[in-house]
């Protein structure tokens, strides 16, 4: 029996508040990143909810308060260093503050994590150009090659063209010309909650329709709005798993669990991934965790138990 995209996050109810997204424990799951847990303050560093910090960074960017934006974005990258969106916002914020070295570092990280992301290459190109670094040319070349491969009619054509011209303007500043915007692709970051909602809803529908590539693109847009969010990350992991890319799926589950260690959906799906990879012992660890966090039992634990018993997807065995 086929199965719908399961509730990645039923256990981790979330709440969008006026100021952003806040976690709330639901059904024994969810929860904020681990806090001090009773340690002395000197023995623990502050922990941040990356979704909230991301929202703070976006709000600060909107107010052109780049220093605060960079500080909040730095908190995001501290918690989820493998998530490119945090580095993206940090790159934008530092560029806005004319901290081009900081922007270069952020975009270098982003390029490493998302090598095919045009925004990352454009941001890096812009930072390098402002630092008079000749490596900016390589980024410009990458963007032009991408634009050429894309052609005039592809969905990203206009965006790639804008990126290329922005980087080239920074490389060859005309006397008296205004400096190019440090923001680059504002539409992604500033699409707002409605745009993020729409992208998220679209992604769920696309996943259910098994249109995984389009779903990932939609999830990317949602994440650009909401930042590293365990629900979105879990869906990304689920989608990559469905595409058969277990390594990427695992990376997303790990990111989700780094943010919300007791995220029921991410724990279940990570366990299922482990079963799919033949790591039954690892899956049992996930199951034990679910049994611990699901007081009074939960369907997620039972589903993972069925996976373990069947040695794979129980609907197929």
């Amino acid at each position, binding site marked *: *029996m*086929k*199965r*719908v995209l*399961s*509730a*990645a*996050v*039923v*256990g*981790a*109810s*979330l*709440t*969008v*508040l*006026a100021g952003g*997204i*806040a*976690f*709330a*424990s*639901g*059904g024994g799951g*969810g929860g904020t990143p681990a806090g001090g847990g009773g340690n002395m303050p000197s023995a623990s560093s502050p922990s941040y909810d990356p979704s909230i910090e991301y929202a703070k960074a976006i709000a600060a960017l909107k107010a052109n308060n780049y220093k605060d934006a960079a500080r909040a974005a730095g908190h995001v990258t501290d918690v989820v260093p493998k998530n490119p969106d945090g580095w993206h916002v940090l790159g934008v914020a530092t560029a806005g503050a004319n901290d081009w070295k900081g922007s270069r570092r952020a975009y270098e990280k982003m390029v490493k994590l998302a090598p095919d992301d045009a925004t990352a290459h454009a941001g890096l190109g812009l930072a390098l150009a402002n630092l008079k670094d000749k490596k900016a040319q390589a980024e410009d070349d990458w963007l032009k090659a991408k634009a050429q491969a894309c052609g005039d009619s592809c969905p990203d054509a206009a965006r790639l063209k804008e990126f290329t011209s922005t980087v080239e303007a920074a490389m060859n500043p005309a006397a008296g010309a205004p400096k190019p915007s440090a923001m680059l692709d504002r539409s992604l970051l500033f699409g707002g*909650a*409605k745009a*993020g*909602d729409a992208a*998220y*809803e*679209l992604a*769920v*529908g696309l996943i*259910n329709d098994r249109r995984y590539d389009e779903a990932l693109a939609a999830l990317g847009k*949602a994440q650009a709005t*909401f930042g590293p*969010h365990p*629900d*979105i990350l879990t869906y990304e992991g689920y989608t990559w798993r469905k595409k058969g890319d277990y390594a990427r799926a695992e990376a997303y589950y790990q990111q989700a669990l780094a943010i919300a260690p007791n995220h029921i*959906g991410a724990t279940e799906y990570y366990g299922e991934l482990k079963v799919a990879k033949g790591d039954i012992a690892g899956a049992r660890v996930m199951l034990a965790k679910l*049994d611990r966090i699901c*007081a*009074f*039992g*939960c*369907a*997620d634990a*039972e*589903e993972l*138990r*069925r996976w373990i018993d069947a040695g794979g997807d*129980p609907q197929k065995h």
Partner: protein
Amino acid sequence: MDRRRRRPAEALAALGLASLVLTAGATALAALGDAPLRAMLWVAPGADPARALGSVPTECLKRPADPALAARIEVGRAAFRTQVLLGGQAARAGINCETCHRDGRANPDFHFPGLSGPPGTADVTNSLFSTHRDNGIDDPKPIPDLSGAKARLKVDQDLAQRKLEPFIHGLITEEFDGPEPTPAVLDGLAAYVRALRPEACPAQAREPFTVALLMADARRALQAGQERIRAGDDASAVLMVASARSRLGLIDERFAAPALAAPRASLRAADRRLEAIQAVLHDHGPDAERQIAAWLAASPRLEAELAARQGLSLFDPARLAQAAKRRLPG
């Protein structure tokens, strides 16, 4: 009117799937994450909390003289009351048969955002709950009263026709993407539904929702589990224990106040013992029946401890109303 399915944004939010879809302005759902009672997620805005959350319809169960049939009915009754019977989104949201069919009746207060039209309706041919039966149309239907006149129900419940069993099987595995039920569970559900009869309805239409009711449900589920163990059917027994745990969970969420930490701890300890029994059953280990018996023997003491503090919990109508006021705008 465009009857194509609206995107299930509200439903996703209610499931906790996509609270992202909530915006600052969506106050009705904006604080779902801290809902004190899970059932608040599917109670219609504006519903009377005392009725919807503080009371339940009385059950119209015709108890048979035949002990074997009575045992089958008890298996079905317990399965009817646990989300673990179902799968997919519904199970993960905590929904079970009894969510919509309160004590085997209808549920006029049920309103699942994105799935319901008017209160008391649900669109079960929706991709949110089912990968099989999505018809792409927003067509919520009234939830039928399973204890109403049999002639008014969709499926012929005549035992000789055997139409009810495949219907219920389809509900579990297709409409709600659940796992294959054991034969005893499927048989028990059909027996339970057949035993819901209008002539068996008590004179009093509703009764308060109490610790005693839920503890009684838990005990009955565990006794059904013992019967299944004796029959060598550990798989069904696991579900019976899951049902008991679900009922304890409904007590637990009403005992969240700090002042109730001690009885809540007792409740959770009792749940852990049931979890251990489930593990034994899962591994076909010995002694599960005796462990259930021990649990049952200790349960009156637990119930007394809980009942003594019930007035400080959300079983108390005034406290419930206060909590619902925060949670059920409308």
